[in-house]
């Protein structure tokens, strides 16, 4: 079963990490990622910019309203997500515990996927966009 791991944390704290702190957390996390990647269980993964970069389109009016900022003001913000293939909830919780040891603070919301498309982004796509699109 595919599970989404929604990573919540206080963005004030996370975005105040020094580069060294950030690198250290990422290095620890990559040790947790490695066996999952090797086992072919590791799906799309993303780290998000802070909520100050977010825009929300509210669909409950016509035309929809465009608002600055995240959908909801919360103490902890959605800062990233994983999609990981896990046998069952217990296995998913094990993954989350490993991730939590590598990166304490905040929480992981574990949510089974209802529908999944692997996507069609070409290989080598970066946050700036697909390689072809980046060429001047």
């Amino acid at each position, binding site marked *: 079963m595919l599970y989404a791991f929604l990573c919540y944390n206080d963005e*004030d704290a996370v975005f*105040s990490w020094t580069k060294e702190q950030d690198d250290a*957390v990422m290095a620890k996390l990559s040790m947790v990622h490695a066996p999952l990647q090797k086992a072919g269980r590791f799906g799309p993964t993303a780290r998000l910019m*802070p909520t100050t970069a977010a825009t929300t389109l509210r669909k409950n009016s016509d035309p929809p309203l465009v608002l600055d900022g995240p959908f909801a003001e919360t*103490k902890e913000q959605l800062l990233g997500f994983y999609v990981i293939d896990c046998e069952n909830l217990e296995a998913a919780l094990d993954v989350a515990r490993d991730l939590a040891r590598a990166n304490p*603070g905040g929480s992981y919301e574990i949510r089974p996927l209802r529908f999944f498309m692997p996507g069609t982004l070409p290989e080598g796509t970066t*946050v700036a966009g697909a390689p072809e699109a980046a060429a001047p």
Partner: protein
Amino acid sequence: MTDLAWIDGALTAARPQAVGALLRYFRDLDLAEEAFQDACLRALKTWPQQGPPRDATAWLIMVGRNAAIDQTRRRSRQTALPDEDQLSDLDDVEAPMAERLDTAHYRDDVLRLLFICCHPDLPATQQIALALRIVSGLSVPQIARAFLVSEAAMEQRITRAKGRIAKADVPFEAPGPVERSERLAAVAAMIYLVFNEGYSAGAVDDERAALPIEAIRLARLLLRLFPAEPEIMGLLALMLLHHSRAAARFDPEGQIILMDDQDRRLWNRDMIGEGLALIDKAIRHRRRGPYQVKAAIAALHARAVTPDDVDWPQIDALYQALEVMEPSPIVTLNRAVAVSKTRGPEAALTMIAPLEGPLSGYFNYFGAKGALLKQLGRAAEARAAFDQAISLADTPAQAAHIRSHLDQLSRDAAAAAAARK
């Protein structure tokens, strides 16, 4: 990350809101700071054992407030409040407290805390020092190192600044819309001062290098509180785009590397991405302002893959817009750089000639003038301008940069003499 590092991060992140709320309760800056300090000490004691509370900020406000009331009572020799074990057990009160925090107050609490640092009577350096002490929670020795002054001098500077704002009327009522936007503008200017204090100093020492990061953190905080303010988006974008070049601006010896010669692979892509995203958001509002225009100029540099790709005509146009919004000889001087790229150094030189009076004490004016004259092959005049620039340099890096121009002029002259023989 260790527990302690995590707690330290959480305390720093909670500080503006917590001290802001405590200031509202006590209406006394020293008391509010002391209360927050007490709460932090208790957090360091109890969080590692009991785990962090669900809402760290609410916990700190609660504990800080109780500790301060306790202190005040002890000072007036009355009965003390219940002891620490009971105080730490805040599960019941935490939730309603958090509810209340979520509502109207805390936006204005944080804004007020930032705003009192921008008192118009305070010179810029005192505003920055005060903001770093009160809002960011840097220690006096840290701030002293950032300003390259002694701890005693900095202590005195901060005390004097606090004394001044204690005498001033700090407005505790929730501000009206006009007042709020005035406060926002003052706070934005102060944050930009913090940024520039570190940015202009360059890479040489660490304490100063931390100031741009702190300014970016404060701007993010402000934008989260006021998410639909295009000028705050512009300010944050501007600082991110400038700071993205930090690793490329100086060579290992601390010498300035001009943008054209920088290794663009060292530019921080995360910051550039975030800066560009913020400008995108700001433009939608169709309410132009100086920070947005400056950010748009920085974005044109960030978007260029090589120095030859820079869209100079567009930069020239943006500086013209800025000259209208914020007329100043420095803006015109910056525009002249764009003009030198589009219409040549002669045109740029004509443009900056009338600025010599108002900018007679400004390092960058003579640096730019010398560079333009050098491009035109007017070596003697270039040398005179560079000499003047060196005499006005603020940092060793600035002086060294100009000296490298002078050295090159000497080499060129020697080569020309050799060729004549």
